[in-house]
């Protein structure tokens, strides 16, 4: 009953989304407010239907209803409840439903808030959102229906892939999808603007919080995925340039560019075509990411069960969802950027004129570099496929390629990041330049010297990385110092209050980047590793500690049995930790996983992995000391926090400055 009711609700949502795609737009064309206002209740109805469907499916997973085919193939009676729940989105059909849930959630939020938005823009945006939702709902209902039933129902399920039975992986998809789908709102705004034929500062003002929120979520989602790979995959890597990882990085790069570009539109009314294109591009890349994972075209550890037949449907959706807006962009884009009908500014100003040294140029450079980086990753990811279609040759484009092409572009960007915030609109560079840039220079030199003397045999790339870290890190501190002037104790609180929230957000976000780089470079360069075969009682020395291997014992988990190694770590004779890496064998799914033991600390992680072996010949152990590695994800978290603060700060500012007519 519940399952079928959920199925019905999903169908109702689909019908409503079809209506939403069409009717309000007719209303806009005819200036029929009645029809236009239908957009909101339609959105709520569509959202309600999807939520009911999701709840029904969740109920099926929670109660282990094996008459639902999805539950039977991805769940098991012995699984812990949290994994029964996260099993819902640990597969193709369920994760697609999650996508749709977030799509309609955001649409609903937009429908509910946005009272200050021009009605036509809001309606058009909701309609475009409805089109995207309709496409996804059609794909779900007709090719990947989560509510398909089994009769007779099996007595137990097939279980969830043990690799997915993990808290990090329970959170990673929802967070990532919030990011992807948030970009859909920006996309809808862009298409709405193209349909309307105008993009102006108020458009930018309305779309900006959505972009920031999506960017924050995307940053967290990618960081979660990377962190998960680090602790789950057993050798401490955190980024592999895997096609699906790239598929999440590309929207992030585009969204970062978009985030900055929309600032320019809002402040200066220029860069409209860039921003439009980036908004379309960011969500298009999210869609392409979906295509990769579910179509079987590219091999990846992330791939769902690949089904090329579904791929055809997805290709059709992509052609419509990306091809149409890009065509609109090609046709209407030039005239859009030539026209600016926002009369709230002084019409005598030559808005689009700016000097070479100006914030405008800085952000243009930012746009350019990030777009170039996105394109490089895109080419690297799809080149093997393209070459195979063209000549039949099979090649691999792996991390060495991306290290050689992507890293230099990002390096230039890091250099620019120190200068950009110092620049002023239209022309010039601000008063903080002296302090910030000299601090940056000092920082770079100090880092280079430290690197050259403290660590031996560093590669040029590593040294360059250290230099960049010093440059950007100290430049930001210099900028902050110039503003706050902490050496002048008088009126310090006043200066503190004068700094608006968005500025703090920017400093945090850029500072987060520095923290991330410290983690990435520190871990990459200063990691220590020991691989040995040990018998019980052996002591291994690593990074100034003594690790005593006490042996391996068998243990029992909720739905698995383990072989657990016990390692006692001592420093200067003091026991500082007991690490227990293990190998798990999941009884229902008959698969094993390796669980590393990690001791995370600010200065660095201790990481241990158990390999094969037995009591007779000894056990293979891999022990790592990974300095500063957690700074990678802390940095990402700080970046996301910075973005969040910037959004809320602006919203507060805006509310303070605007007067709503009663």
């Amino acid at each position: 009953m519940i399952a079928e009711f959920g199925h019905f609700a999903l169908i109702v949502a689909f019908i409503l989304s079809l209506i939403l795609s069409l009717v309000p737009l007719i209303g806009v064309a005819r200036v029929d407010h009645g029809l236009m206002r239908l957009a909101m209740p339609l959105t709520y109805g569509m959202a309600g239907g999807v939520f009911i469907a999701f709840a029904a499916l969740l109920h099926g997973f929670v109660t282990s209803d094996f008459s639902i085919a999805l539950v039977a193939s991805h769940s098991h009676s012995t699984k812990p409840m949290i994994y029964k729940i996260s099993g819902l989105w640990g597969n193709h059909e369920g994760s697609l439903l999650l996508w749709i849930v977030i799509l309609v959630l955001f649409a609903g939020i937009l429908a509910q808030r946005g009272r200050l938005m021009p009605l036509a823009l809001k309606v058009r945006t909701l309609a475009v959102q409805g089109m995207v939702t309709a496409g996804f709902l059609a794909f779900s209902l007709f090719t990947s229906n989560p509510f398909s039933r089994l009769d007779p129902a099996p007595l137990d399920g097939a279980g969830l892939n043990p690799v997915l039975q993990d808290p990090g992986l329970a959170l990673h998809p929802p967070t990532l999808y919030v990011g992807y789908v948030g970009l859909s709102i920006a996309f809808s705004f862009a298409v709405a603007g193209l349909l309307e034929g105008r993009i102006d500062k108020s458009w930018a003002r309305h779309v900006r919080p959505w972009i920031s929120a999506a960017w924050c979520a995307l940053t967290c989602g990618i960081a979660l995925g990377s962190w998960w790979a680090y602790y789950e995959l057993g050798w401490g890597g955190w980024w592999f340039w895997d096609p699906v990882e790239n598929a999440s990085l590309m929207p992030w790069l585009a969204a970062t560019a978009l985030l900055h570009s929309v600032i320019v539109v809002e402040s200066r009314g220029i860069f409209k075509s860039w921003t439009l294109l980036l908004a379309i591009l960011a969500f298009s890349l999210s869609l392409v990411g979906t295509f990769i994972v579910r179509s079987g075209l590219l091999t990846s550890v992330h791939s769902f069960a690949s089904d090329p037949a579904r791929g055809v449907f997805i290709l059709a959706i992509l052609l419509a969802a990306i091809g149409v807006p890009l065509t609109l962009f090609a046709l209407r884009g030039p005239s859009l950027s030539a026209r600016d009908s926002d009369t709230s500014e002084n019409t005598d100003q030559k808005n689009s004129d700016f000097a070479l040294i100006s914030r405008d140029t800085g952000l243009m450079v930012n746009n350019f570099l990030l777009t170039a980086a996105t394109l490089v990753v895109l080419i690297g990811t799809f080149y093997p496929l393209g070459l195979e279609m063209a000549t039949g040759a099979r090649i691999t484009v792996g991390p060495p390629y991306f290290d050689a092409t992507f890293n230099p572009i990002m390096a230039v960007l890091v250099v620019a990041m120190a200068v950009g915030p110092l620049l002023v609109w239209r022309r010039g560079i601000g008063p903080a330049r002296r302090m910030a840039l000299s601090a940056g220079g000092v920082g770079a030199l100090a880092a280079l010297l430290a690197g050259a003397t403290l660590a031996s045999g560093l590669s040029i790339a590593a040294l360059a990385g250290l230099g960049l870290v010093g440059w950007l890190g100290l430049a930001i501190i210099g900028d902050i110092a110039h503003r706050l002037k902490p050496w002048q104790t008088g009126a310090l609180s006043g200066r503190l209050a004068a700094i608006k929230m968005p500025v703090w957000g920017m400093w945090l976000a850029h500072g987060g980047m520095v923290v991330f780089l410290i983690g990435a470079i520190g871990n990459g360069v200063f990691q220590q590793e020991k691989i040995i075969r040990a018998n019980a009682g052996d002591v291994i020395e690593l990074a100034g500690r003594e690790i005593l291997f006490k042996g391996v014992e068998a243990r029992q988990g909720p739905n698995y049995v383990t072989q657990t190694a016990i390692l006692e770590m001592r420093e200067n004779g003091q026991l500082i930790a007991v690490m227990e890496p293990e190998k798990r064998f999941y009884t229902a799914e008959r698969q094993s996983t390796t669980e590393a033991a990690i001791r995370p600390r600010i200065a660095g992680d201790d990481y241990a992995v158990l390999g094969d072996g037995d009591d007779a010949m000894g056990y293979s152990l891999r022990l790592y000391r990974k300095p500063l590695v957690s700074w990678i994800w802390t940095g990402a978290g700080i970046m996301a926090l910075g973005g969040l603060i910037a959004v809320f700060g602006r919203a507060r500012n805006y509310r303070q400055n605007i007067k709503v007519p009663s």
Partner: protein
Amino acid sequence: MTPQEPQKAQQAKKAQQAKKANPPKTGLQLSFLLPLIGFMALAIIAAIALFSTLSGTRDVSQLPSVMVGKPVPETNLPLLEGAKTLDLTAFRGKPLLINFFASWCAPCRAEAPALALLSRDVTIVAIAYKDKQADTISFLTQYGNPFAAVAMDYDGQAGLKWGVYGVPETYLVGPDGRIVLRHAGPIDRRVIDNEIMPAIKALQ
């Protein structure tokens, strides 16, 4: 006349001048077309890949072998039974199939009847890849032995020389000792009819 009117008139005049100076850019511009062109290129690649995968002409798991055209690598392996080593030069002068298999490999069992069928038309030499003698013997007892000779590659070293990356793999060697084709994966009627037999006929 209202105070705003002169201002408005001036604005209108300026607008007209600006319009004459640079007409609004309408129509197609190359830089605005680039994203669409780029996307269409990507979509075409994806479509071709998708349809060739659907129609079966593209198999992602099949890696084309770069050993095709090269002479057979040195393969001095012990035979399954007896103390001798495998001597591939003894098979020169006619087409030869080399089949890498293993007792632990499920698709190898599935292709046994197809190999039996093939063995009527062409000599097949098998190499047991990373397997034990006893297991290989019981495999051959259970599934039949259509091979002219069976050699043992205990550590996979010979496989590395041939470019083997999984089992089963079958190589067609020409009368001159050069590799003519490689099929990765189990052999069935379709593979025999569409790939192997035409290649053998072409050699004769």
